[in-house]
Protein backbone atom coordinates (compact mmCIF):
# COMPACT_ATOMS: atom_id res chain seq x y z
CA UNK A 1 0.00 0.00 0.00
CA UNK A 2 1.27 3.46 -0.77
CA UNK A 3 1.89 6.08 1.90
CA UNK A 4 -1.02 8.01 0.41
CA UNK A 5 -3.47 5.15 0.97
CA UNK A 6 -2.15 4.21 4.40
CA UNK A 7 -2.33 7.79 5.61
CA UNK A 8 -5.87 8.31 4.31
CA UNK A 9 -7.08 5.08 5.90
CA UNK A 10 -5.64 6.26 9.19
CA UNK A 11 -7.10 9.76 8.82
CA UNK A 12 -10.50 8.17 8.35
CA UNK A 13 -10.00 5.85 11.33
CA UNK A 14 -8.92 8.73 13.56
CA UNK A 15 -11.78 10.95 12.41
CA UNK A 16 -14.28 8.25 13.23
CA UNK A 17 -12.73 7.73 16.62
CA UNK A 18 -12.66 11.41 17.48
CA UNK A 19 -13.41 14.69 15.69
CA UNK A 20 -14.22 18.27 16.67
CA UNK A 21 -17.80 19.03 17.66
CA UNK A 22 -20.20 20.08 14.91
CA UNK A 23 -17.97 18.96 12.02
CA UNK A 24 -18.46 16.08 9.66
CA UNK A 25 -16.13 14.52 7.10
CA UNK A 26 -16.43 11.39 5.00
CA UNK A 27 -14.97 9.94 1.83
CA UNK A 28 -17.22 10.02 -1.23
CA UNK A 29 -18.62 6.91 -2.82
CA UNK A 30 -17.56 5.97 -6.31
CA UNK A 31 -20.00 4.76 -8.97
CA UNK A 32 -19.50 1.15 -7.93
CA UNK A 33 -20.29 1.98 -4.30
CA UNK A 34 -16.78 1.70 -2.91
CA UNK A 35 -15.14 4.55 -1.00
CA UNK A 36 -12.84 6.99 -2.73
CA UNK A 37 -10.46 7.99 0.02
CA UNK A 38 -9.03 10.80 -2.09
CA UNK A 39 -12.33 12.68 -2.35
CA UNK A 40 -14.07 13.75 0.81
CA UNK A 41 -17.07 15.86 1.68
CA UNK A 42 -17.04 17.73 4.95
CA UNK A 43 -18.98 20.34 6.88
CA UNK A 44 -17.51 23.33 8.68
CA UNK A 45 -19.69 24.84 11.41
CA UNK A 46 -19.48 28.62 11.80
CA UNK A 47 -18.18 29.64 15.22
CA UNK A 48 -20.70 30.79 17.80
CA UNK A 49 -21.04 34.54 18.30
CA UNK A 50 -19.82 35.29 14.81
CA UNK A 51 -21.62 36.26 11.61
CA UNK A 52 -21.08 32.70 10.50
CA UNK A 53 -22.84 31.00 13.41
CA UNK A 54 -25.69 28.51 13.22
CA UNK A 55 -24.69 27.18 9.83
CA UNK A 56 -22.59 24.32 8.52
CA UNK A 57 -20.70 25.16 5.33
CA UNK A 58 -20.09 22.30 2.95
CA UNK A 59 -16.66 21.72 1.50
CA UNK A 60 -15.00 19.10 -0.65
CA UNK A 61 -11.48 17.97 0.10
CA UNK A 62 -9.44 16.52 -2.72
CA UNK A 63 -6.25 14.69 -1.80
CA UNK A 64 -3.67 14.55 -4.60
CA UNK A 65 -1.72 11.38 -5.31
CA UNK A 66 1.31 13.00 -3.70
CA UNK A 67 -0.53 13.60 -0.42
CA UNK A 68 0.76 13.96 2.28
CA UNK A 69 3.79 15.45 0.55
CA UNK A 70 1.40 17.83 -1.19
CA UNK A 71 -1.62 19.44 0.47
CA UNK A 72 -5.23 18.63 -0.34
CA UNK A 73 -7.37 21.10 -2.23
CA UNK A 74 -10.30 22.43 -0.22
CA UNK A 75 -13.34 23.89 -2.00
CA UNK A 76 -16.54 25.58 -0.94
CA UNK A 77 -19.41 25.64 -3.45
CA UNK A 78 -18.69 27.94 -6.44
CA UNK A 79 -19.29 31.64 -5.72
CA UNK A 80 -19.07 31.13 -1.96
CA UNK A 81 -18.94 34.56 -0.34
CA UNK A 82 -15.63 35.00 1.49
CA UNK A 83 -12.65 37.27 0.78
CA UNK A 84 -10.21 34.34 0.63
CA UNK A 85 -12.28 31.98 -1.49
CA UNK A 86 -11.78 32.00 -5.25
CA UNK A 87 -14.86 32.22 -7.48
CA UNK A 88 -14.36 28.50 -8.16
CA UNK A 89 -14.78 27.87 -4.43
CA UNK A 90 -11.12 26.97 -3.80
CA UNK A 91 -9.89 28.10 -0.40
CA UNK A 92 -6.79 30.25 -0.22
CA UNK A 93 -5.10 29.36 3.07
CA UNK A 94 -1.39 29.26 3.77
CA UNK A 95 -1.44 25.82 5.42
CA UNK A 96 -3.04 24.46 2.23
CA UNK A 97 -0.32 25.89 0.02
CA UNK A 98 2.68 23.71 -0.71
CA UNK A 99 4.82 26.79 -1.34
CA UNK A 100 3.79 28.26 1.99
CA UNK A 101 2.92 26.54 5.25
CA UNK A 102 1.83 23.06 4.21
CA UNK A 103 3.62 20.30 6.12
CA UNK A 104 2.97 16.59 5.65
CA UNK A 105 2.17 16.11 9.34
CA UNK A 106 -0.84 18.47 9.21
CA UNK A 107 -3.90 16.32 9.84
CA UNK A 108 -7.42 16.48 8.45
CA UNK A 109 -8.60 17.74 11.83
CA UNK A 110 -6.10 20.61 11.73
CA UNK A 111 -7.19 21.47 8.18
CA UNK A 112 -10.90 21.72 8.96
CA UNK A 113 -10.18 23.71 12.13
CA UNK A 114 -7.99 26.03 10.04
CA UNK A 115 -10.80 26.56 7.55
CA UNK A 116 -13.22 27.27 10.40
CA UNK A 117 -10.85 29.91 11.77
CA UNK A 118 -10.58 31.51 8.36
CA UNK A 119 -14.36 32.07 8.09
CA UNK A 120 -14.48 34.85 10.64
CA UNK A 121 -10.89 36.02 10.35
CA UNK A 122 -10.31 36.71 6.65
CA UNK A 123 -6.76 37.39 5.56
CA UNK A 124 -6.37 40.92 4.17
CA UNK A 125 -3.23 39.98 2.31
CA UNK A 126 -4.67 37.35 0.01
CA UNK A 127 -7.88 38.49 -1.67
CA UNK A 128 -9.32 35.72 -3.82
CA UNK A 129 -12.54 37.24 -5.06
CA UNK A 130 -13.77 40.72 -5.90
CA UNK A 131 -17.27 40.95 -4.29
CA UNK A 132 -16.49 39.71 -0.78
CA UNK A 133 -13.08 41.41 -0.61
CA UNK A 134 -14.42 44.76 -1.79
CA UNK A 135 -17.38 44.61 0.60
CA UNK A 136 -15.13 43.56 3.48
CA UNK A 137 -12.78 46.48 2.91
CA UNK A 138 -15.16 49.21 1.78
CA UNK A 139 -18.73 48.45 2.89
CA UNK A 140 -18.80 46.43 6.08
CA UNK A 141 -22.62 46.66 6.39
CA UNK A 142 -23.06 45.07 2.98
CA UNK A 143 -20.46 42.43 3.87
CA UNK A 144 -22.30 41.48 7.04
CA UNK A 145 -25.64 41.33 5.27
CA UNK A 146 -24.24 39.02 2.59
CA UNK A 147 -22.55 36.75 5.13
CA UNK A 148 -25.78 36.49 7.15
CA UNK A 149 -27.78 35.67 4.02
CA UNK A 150 -25.28 32.95 3.22
CA UNK A 151 -25.50 31.61 6.79
CA UNK A 152 -29.27 31.29 6.37
CA UNK A 153 -28.72 29.32 3.20
CA UNK A 154 -26.53 26.80 5.04
CA UNK A 155 -28.41 27.00 8.33
CA UNK A 156 -27.94 23.94 10.52
CA UNK A 157 -31.09 22.10 11.48
Amino acid at each position, binding site marked *: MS*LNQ*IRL*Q*EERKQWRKDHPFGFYAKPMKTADGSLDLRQWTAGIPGKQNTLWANAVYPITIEFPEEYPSKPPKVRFPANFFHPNVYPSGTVCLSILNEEQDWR*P*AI*TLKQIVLGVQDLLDTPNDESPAQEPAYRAYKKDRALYEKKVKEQAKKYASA
Partner: protein
Amino acid sequence: MSDSEEEVPTMELKLPDYLPLKSELMRDFEKSFHNRTIPDIIKVQTRQIQEAAEKYIQYVLEHPQLDFDESILSSFEKSLENLIRSEFEFSKLEAIRKNPSVSAFASREESDLTLDSLESYQNITKPNFSDVIEEQYLEMKSPKYSKGYKDLIHKHKFYNYLNDILFVIRNPEDQIPDENEDEELNVSGGKISLKDPLSLNYYSDPVRSKRCKHTFERSNIEEQLKRGEASRERITHCPIAACSQVINRADLEADVLMIIRIRSFQRLHNKTRDVDTVI
Protein backbone atom coordinates in the same frame (compact mmCIF):
# COMPACT_ATOMS: atom_id res chain seq x y z
CA MET B 1 55.28 -12.33 100.41
CA SER B 2 54.35 -11.71 96.81
CA ASP B 3 55.67 -8.97 94.55
CA SER B 4 52.43 -7.06 94.71
CA GLU B 5 53.08 -6.18 98.24
CA GLU B 6 55.96 -4.13 97.09
CA GLU B 7 54.97 -0.51 96.65
CA VAL B 8 55.12 0.68 93.06
CA PRO B 9 56.20 4.29 92.96
CA THR B 10 53.34 6.43 91.64
CA MET B 11 54.20 8.14 88.42
CA GLU B 12 52.53 11.16 87.00
CA LEU B 13 52.27 9.85 83.45
CA LYS B 14 49.48 11.61 81.60
CA LEU B 15 49.21 11.60 77.81
CA PRO B 16 49.02 15.08 76.33
CA ASP B 17 45.82 16.23 74.58
CA TYR B 18 47.76 16.75 71.41
CA LEU B 19 49.65 13.85 69.89
CA PRO B 20 51.93 14.24 66.92
CA LEU B 21 51.25 12.00 63.96
CA LYS B 22 53.78 9.19 63.78
CA SER B 23 55.95 9.64 60.75
CA GLU B 24 55.31 6.16 59.35
CA LEU B 25 51.55 6.72 59.67
CA MET B 26 51.99 9.96 57.82
CA ARG B 27 53.69 8.05 55.04
CA ASP B 28 50.81 5.54 54.92
CA PHE B 29 48.34 8.34 54.81
CA GLU B 30 50.10 10.05 51.95
CA LYS B 31 50.43 6.79 50.07
CA SER B 32 46.82 5.74 50.35
CA PHE B 33 45.49 9.19 49.63
CA HIS B 34 47.61 9.44 46.56
CA ASN B 35 46.40 6.11 45.35
CA ARG B 36 45.44 6.79 41.77
CA THR B 37 44.54 3.18 41.07
CA ILE B 38 41.12 3.55 42.71
CA PRO B 39 39.67 6.03 40.19
CA ASP B 40 41.23 3.99 37.41
CA ILE B 41 39.53 0.84 38.66
CA ILE B 42 36.23 2.71 38.88
CA LYS B 43 36.69 3.92 35.32
CA VAL B 44 37.49 0.49 33.97
CA GLN B 45 34.54 -1.12 35.74
CA THR B 46 32.17 1.61 34.59
CA ARG B 47 33.29 1.03 31.03
CA GLN B 48 32.88 -2.72 31.34
CA ILE B 49 29.35 -2.42 32.69
CA GLN B 50 28.45 0.07 30.01
CA GLU B 51 29.79 -2.23 27.30
CA ALA B 52 27.93 -5.21 28.69
CA ALA B 53 24.70 -3.21 28.91
CA GLU B 54 25.14 -1.90 25.37
CA LYS B 55 25.71 -5.44 24.12
CA TYR B 56 22.59 -6.65 25.88
CA ILE B 57 20.46 -3.82 24.50
CA GLN B 58 21.84 -4.33 21.01
CA TYR B 59 21.18 -8.05 21.19
CA VAL B 60 17.57 -7.63 22.24
CA LEU B 61 17.07 -4.96 19.59
CA GLU B 62 18.37 -7.32 16.95
CA HIS B 63 16.03 -10.07 18.07
CA PRO B 64 12.48 -8.74 17.88
CA GLN B 65 11.04 -11.90 19.43
CA LEU B 66 12.88 -11.13 22.71
CA ASP B 67 11.64 -8.84 25.43
CA PHE B 68 13.78 -6.50 27.44
CA ASP B 69 14.31 -7.96 30.89
CA GLU B 70 13.71 -5.26 33.48
CA SER B 71 15.73 -7.05 36.15
CA ILE B 72 18.79 -7.28 33.89
CA LEU B 73 18.59 -3.61 32.97
CA SER B 74 17.98 -2.70 36.61
CA SER B 75 21.06 -4.58 37.73
CA PHE B 76 23.17 -2.74 35.16
CA GLU B 77 21.70 0.48 36.41
CA LYS B 78 22.31 -0.45 40.04
CA SER B 79 25.95 -1.35 39.34
CA LEU B 80 26.53 1.94 37.60
CA GLU B 81 24.90 3.75 40.46
CA ASN B 82 27.23 2.04 42.92
CA LEU B 83 30.25 2.98 40.85
CA ILE B 84 29.11 6.56 40.59
CA ARG B 85 28.64 6.51 44.35
CA SER B 86 32.21 5.17 44.80
CA GLU B 87 33.53 7.83 42.49
CA PHE B 88 31.76 10.41 44.60
CA GLU B 89 33.10 8.97 47.86
CA PHE B 90 36.56 8.97 46.42
CA SER B 91 36.21 12.57 45.41
CA LYS B 92 35.34 13.32 49.04
CA LEU B 93 38.59 11.69 50.16
CA GLU B 94 40.44 13.75 47.62
CA ALA B 95 38.81 16.91 48.89
CA ILE B 96 39.82 16.04 52.43
CA ARG B 97 43.39 15.34 51.42
CA LYS B 98 43.60 18.66 49.63
CA ASN B 99 42.04 20.55 52.49
CA PRO B 100 44.70 22.98 53.85
CA SER B 101 44.17 22.04 57.47
CA VAL B 102 44.74 18.36 56.61
CA SER B 103 47.65 18.82 54.28
CA ALA B 104 49.32 21.02 56.89
CA PHE B 105 49.99 17.85 58.84
CA ALA B 106 51.87 16.28 56.00
CA SER B 107 54.38 19.07 55.76
CA ARG B 108 54.91 19.48 59.45
CA GLU B 109 58.17 18.39 60.99
CA GLU B 110 57.38 17.05 64.42
CA SER B 111 59.33 14.67 66.54
CA ASP B 112 57.60 11.43 67.40
CA LEU B 113 56.16 11.05 70.86
CA THR B 114 58.72 9.55 73.23
CA LEU B 115 59.18 9.70 76.96
CA ASP B 116 61.72 12.40 76.35
CA SER B 117 59.50 14.54 74.15
CA LEU B 118 56.38 13.87 76.17
CA GLU B 119 56.68 16.92 78.26
CA SER B 120 57.07 19.27 75.36
CA TYR B 121 53.66 18.16 74.05
CA GLN B 122 51.83 18.59 77.34
CA ASN B 123 50.84 22.17 76.82
CA ILE B 124 49.96 22.13 73.13
CA THR B 125 46.29 22.64 72.54
CA LYS B 126 45.36 22.13 68.93
CA PRO B 127 43.23 19.53 67.16
CA ASN B 128 44.72 16.15 66.49
CA PHE B 129 45.00 14.78 62.98
CA SER B 130 42.07 12.41 63.56
CA ASP B 131 39.93 15.30 64.85
CA VAL B 132 40.63 17.33 61.72
CA ILE B 133 39.74 14.41 59.49
CA GLU B 134 36.54 13.75 61.43
CA GLU B 135 35.57 17.37 61.24
CA GLN B 136 36.05 17.33 57.48
CA TYR B 137 33.87 14.25 57.13
CA LEU B 138 31.09 15.79 59.18
CA GLU B 139 31.27 18.84 56.97
CA MET B 140 30.72 16.59 53.97
CA LYS B 141 27.44 15.31 55.28
CA SER B 142 25.96 18.71 54.58
CA PRO B 143 23.41 19.01 51.73
CA LYS B 144 25.96 20.99 49.75
CA TYR B 145 27.96 17.80 49.25
CA SER B 146 25.09 15.40 48.61
CA LYS B 147 24.10 17.70 45.76
CA GLY B 148 27.48 16.82 44.30
CA TYR B 149 26.41 13.19 44.07
CA LYS B 150 23.14 14.10 42.36
CA ASP B 151 25.05 16.23 39.88
CA LEU B 152 27.34 13.31 39.13
CA ILE B 153 24.32 11.05 38.51
CA HIS B 154 22.61 13.63 36.29
CA LYS B 155 25.76 14.13 34.27
CA HIS B 156 26.21 10.44 33.61
CA LYS B 157 24.83 9.97 30.11
CA PHE B 158 24.70 6.21 30.01
CA TYR B 159 23.17 5.94 33.46
CA ASN B 160 20.39 8.28 32.34
CA TYR B 161 19.98 6.35 29.13
CA LEU B 162 19.39 3.13 31.11
CA ASN B 163 17.01 5.04 33.30
CA ASP B 164 15.05 6.25 30.27
CA ILE B 165 14.92 2.75 28.81
CA LEU B 166 13.53 1.36 32.05
CA PHE B 167 10.97 4.16 32.15
CA VAL B 168 9.68 3.57 28.62
CA ILE B 169 9.53 -0.19 29.15
CA ARG B 170 7.19 0.42 32.07
CA ASN B 171 5.36 3.40 30.55
CA PRO B 172 5.61 3.09 26.77
CA GLU B 173 3.22 5.95 26.05
CA ASP B 174 4.38 8.43 28.66
CA GLN B 175 6.74 11.32 28.38
CA ILE B 176 9.99 10.82 30.29
CA PRO B 177 9.83 13.11 33.31
CA ASP B 178 12.48 15.78 33.23
CA GLU B 179 14.21 15.65 36.61
CA ASN B 180 15.46 19.17 36.21
CA GLU B 181 11.95 20.51 35.89
CA ASP B 182 9.65 21.27 38.72
CA GLU B 183 7.54 18.19 39.38
CA GLU B 184 4.47 20.36 39.77
CA LEU B 185 4.83 21.60 36.22
CA ASN B 186 5.30 18.13 34.92
CA VAL B 187 2.08 16.40 35.91
CA SER B 188 0.24 17.09 32.66
CA GLY B 189 0.54 13.37 31.90
CA GLY B 190 1.96 14.16 28.47
CA LYS B 191 1.53 11.24 26.11
CA ILE B 192 4.00 10.33 23.43
CA SER B 193 2.53 9.31 20.11
CA LEU B 194 3.78 5.93 18.94
CA LYS B 195 2.62 6.70 15.42
CA ASP B 196 4.55 8.12 12.53
CA PRO B 197 3.18 11.62 11.77
CA LEU B 198 3.45 10.93 8.02
CA SER B 199 1.46 7.69 7.81
CA LEU B 200 -0.30 7.83 11.21
CA ASN B 201 0.71 4.18 11.57
CA TYR B 202 2.64 2.68 14.46
CA TYR B 203 6.38 2.94 13.96
CA SER B 204 8.37 -0.09 12.97
CA ASP B 205 11.70 1.50 12.07
CA PRO B 206 11.67 4.94 13.70
CA VAL B 207 14.44 7.43 13.01
CA ARG B 208 14.97 10.74 14.71
CA SER B 209 16.44 13.95 13.39
CA LYS B 210 19.26 15.10 15.63
CA ARG B 211 18.45 18.71 14.85
CA CYS B 212 14.87 18.94 16.06
CA LYS B 213 14.37 15.54 17.76
CA HIS B 214 11.30 14.77 15.66
CA THR B 215 10.78 11.11 14.85
CA PHE B 216 9.49 9.51 11.65
CA GLU B 217 9.19 6.12 10.07
CA ARG B 218 12.39 5.62 8.11
CA SER B 219 10.87 4.78 4.72
CA ASN B 220 8.44 7.70 4.92
CA ILE B 221 10.94 10.37 5.82
CA GLU B 222 13.23 9.04 3.11
CA GLU B 223 10.48 9.60 0.60
CA GLN B 224 10.25 13.18 1.87
CA LEU B 225 14.01 13.59 1.54
CA LYS B 226 13.91 12.39 -2.08
CA ARG B 227 11.20 14.93 -2.82
CA GLY B 228 13.15 17.62 -1.04
CA GLU B 229 16.29 16.86 -3.02
CA ALA B 230 14.32 17.06 -6.26
CA SER B 231 12.58 20.30 -5.26
CA ARG B 232 13.53 23.77 -6.34
CA GLU B 233 14.82 24.69 -2.87
CA ARG B 234 16.70 21.37 -2.58
CA ILE B 235 15.84 21.18 1.09
CA THR B 236 13.36 19.18 3.12
CA HIS B 237 11.46 21.06 5.76
CA CYS B 238 10.64 19.07 8.86
CA PRO B 239 7.14 17.67 8.19
CA ILE B 240 5.93 18.84 11.60
CA ALA B 241 3.92 22.05 11.20
CA ALA B 242 5.36 23.92 14.15
CA CYS B 243 8.99 22.99 13.40
CA SER B 244 11.25 25.40 11.58
CA GLN B 245 14.17 23.00 11.07
CA VAL B 246 15.19 21.21 7.93
CA ILE B 247 15.79 17.47 7.73
CA ASN B 248 19.13 16.18 6.46
CA ARG B 249 19.88 12.56 5.74
CA ALA B 250 23.01 12.80 7.87
CA ASP B 251 21.03 13.96 10.90
CA LEU B 252 18.84 10.88 11.02
CA GLU B 253 19.59 8.25 13.64
CA ALA B 254 17.67 5.20 14.87
CA ASP B 255 15.31 6.25 17.66
CA VAL B 256 16.15 3.44 20.07
CA LEU B 257 13.83 4.64 22.81
CA MET B 258 10.94 4.73 20.35
CA ILE B 259 11.72 1.19 19.22
CA ILE B 260 11.64 0.09 22.85
CA ARG B 261 8.40 2.00 23.45
CA ILE B 262 6.75 0.26 20.51
CA ARG B 263 7.90 -3.17 21.58
CA SER B 264 6.83 -2.62 25.17
CA PHE B 265 3.51 -1.18 24.05
CA GLN B 266 2.82 -4.21 21.90
CA ARG B 267 3.77 -6.55 24.70
CA LEU B 268 1.60 -4.69 27.22
CA HIS B 269 -1.37 -4.60 24.88
CA ASN B 270 -0.70 -8.05 23.60
CA LYS B 271 -1.36 -6.98 20.09
CA THR B 272 0.88 -6.80 17.08
CA ARG B 273 1.38 -3.98 14.71
CA ASP B 274 -0.15 -6.03 11.94
CA VAL B 275 -3.46 -6.48 13.69
CA ASP B 276 -3.83 -2.77 13.95
CA THR B 277 -2.68 -1.71 10.52
CA VAL B 278 -3.82 -4.35 8.10
CA ILE B 279 -7.29 -3.48 7.00
